[in-house]
């Protein structure tokens, strides 16, 4: 049966394996037909920043293309478009965004606050909080 899962993420991009696991959970839930609500809190608001840039790897002598460095904004974009459609909603915590100057997002996420998270919690079948260490 299709249900609704709310996920709260806190880790910033390129920092923790928690982010990879969270993306895998979100992708699998969407693929199984569930609706997923993501509340990006604290450092996780930077996951969707438009300005992320892939880089070469001088230590391995690889160019940008050869390194094929994955960007979290591209992963989220993929989940929002091909993977999720309308079944994935993404909110970035507004206060966290302002603190970090992280307001330049890809298309899809919207600004919100803890009240939105509380509303999602009350409406969802499951809430899964993935805190940073």
């Amino acid at each position, binding site marked *: 049966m299709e249900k609704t*899962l709310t996920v709260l993420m806190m880790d910033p991009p390129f920092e923790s*394996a*928690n982010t990879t*696991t969270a993306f*895998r959970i979100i992708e699998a*839930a969407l693929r*199984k037909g*569930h609706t997923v609500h993501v509340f990006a809190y604290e450092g996780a608001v930077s996951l969707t920043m438009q300005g992320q840039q892939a880089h070469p790897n001088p230590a391995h002598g690889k160019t940008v293309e050869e390194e094929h460095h994955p960007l979290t904004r591209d992963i989220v974009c993929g989940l929002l478009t091909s993977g999720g459609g309308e079944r994935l909603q993404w909110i970035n915590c507004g206060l966290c965004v302002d603190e970090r100057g992280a307001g330049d997002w890809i298309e899809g996420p919207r600004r919100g606050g803890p009240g939105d998270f509380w509303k999602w919690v009350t409406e969802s079948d*499951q809430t*899964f909080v993935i805190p940073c260490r």
Partner: protein
Amino acid sequence: MSSYLFVESRDPFASRDVEEGYRLLAELAVQPIPVTLFLVQNGVLAARQGARASQFTALVAHPGVTVLADTFALQERGIPTDALVPGVQASDIDILVDLLMLDGQKAIWH
């Protein structure tokens, strides 16, 4: 009836509070409350045969506890499934999502 899904991302050799989680699960299981421990990331390191994690092996042996290990995390760390502590089952993220969405499931990440 409520059940508990405990997702462990840390190993007991780097984070001493992991053992507190094992203890919590053991106490829930004796209630008896259905308990699943799902190991992800470095959480799978405790599941290697020969790892000195006595509280983990005791938890695996508890009849009320199901212990699953994320195949993705095992592969990343070069741990073959036949090198797992007996009682630990290799699993995947699809199973984790199914467990998350069970009615009455209380899910905790550590």
